[in-house]
């Protein structure tokens, strides 16, 4: 249903510096229906290295989906988004912004930069898990992801 070979995992890159959020996201995706590998990086520079297969990420797969926090150390998520969406090799990869920011300015700017969707992380635990599950369900089961 999602356009991938049945049996081939979907590779997701999670760009997130908060360890609690990383853990919750990992768990939610582990319990998901669709076979997936969640790769985690903790700052914007690592994200770009992963996507460009630099250094320790030389053998990393190109992700099928990116979950991107905005407020990141070293290189801001907004800058990562701008780079991804202007790189012909990467721009096709759907980017789901998952951030604490509710700021109108952030929402507008990231859509202008071609973020595929913007989601504000709930503060409450149950809601956070439910949001991540909804992301997993929508992007891995309903949507057709591009072959990358």
């Amino acid at each position, binding site marked *: 249903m999602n*356009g991938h070979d049945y049996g081939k995992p979907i590779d997701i890159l999670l760009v997130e510096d908060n360890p609690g959020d990383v853990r919750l996201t990992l768990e939610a995706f582990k319990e998901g229906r669709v076979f997936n590998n969640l790769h985690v990086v903790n700052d914007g520079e690592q994200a770009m290295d992963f996507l460009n297969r630099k250094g320790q990420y030389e053998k990393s797969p190109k992700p099928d989906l990116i979950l991107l926090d905005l407020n990141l150390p070293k290189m801001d998520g907004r800058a990562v988004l701008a780079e991804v*969406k202007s790189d012909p090799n990467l*721009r*096709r990869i*759907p980017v789901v912004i998952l951030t604490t920011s*509710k700021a*109108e300015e952030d*929402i*507008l700017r990231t*859509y*202008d930069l*071609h973020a*595929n*969707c*913007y*989601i*504000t992380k709930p503060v409450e635990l149950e809601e956070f898990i439910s*949001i991540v599950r*909804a*992301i997993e*369900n*929508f*992007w891995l089961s*309903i*949507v*057709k*992801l*591009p*072959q990358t």
Partner: protein
Amino acid sequence: MFADRDEQVVKILLVEDSIGDIRLTQEVFKEGKLNNELYTVKDGEEATSFLHKKGPYANSPRPDLILLDLNLPKKDGREVLKEIKSDKDLARIPVVVLTTSKAEEDIERTYDLHANCYITKPIDIDQFIHVAKSIEDFWFSIVKLPSGAGG
């Protein structure tokens, strides 16, 4: 500010030429949790007129979300997508491509054109309803739309 967001009606533009699909979509959205208004146009030219408030659409609202079929009469959905995403006033409106095509080429090309997501319409009615509900749940309640409407 949150109160304003909750009270706003989500306006959706459905660009679809199949009457059956229009009717199903209308029914799903009518029963939806969130207040919404579904506007329908049946070809690519009407879509352009609606979005640019031309002719009979002079008083049409700007949609908060666009559901776009690819295979349309008069002007193809791919052309409409390209126009939307290169227009500085319209580019930020999320476009959910909802089409019968499963072709890899279509999928890749529409993501390249910055479609927000691509969904293949199921043939089965129950599955179609399930997909329409999923779109509604995800884009109205979970996602923050750039216009401020919805969840």
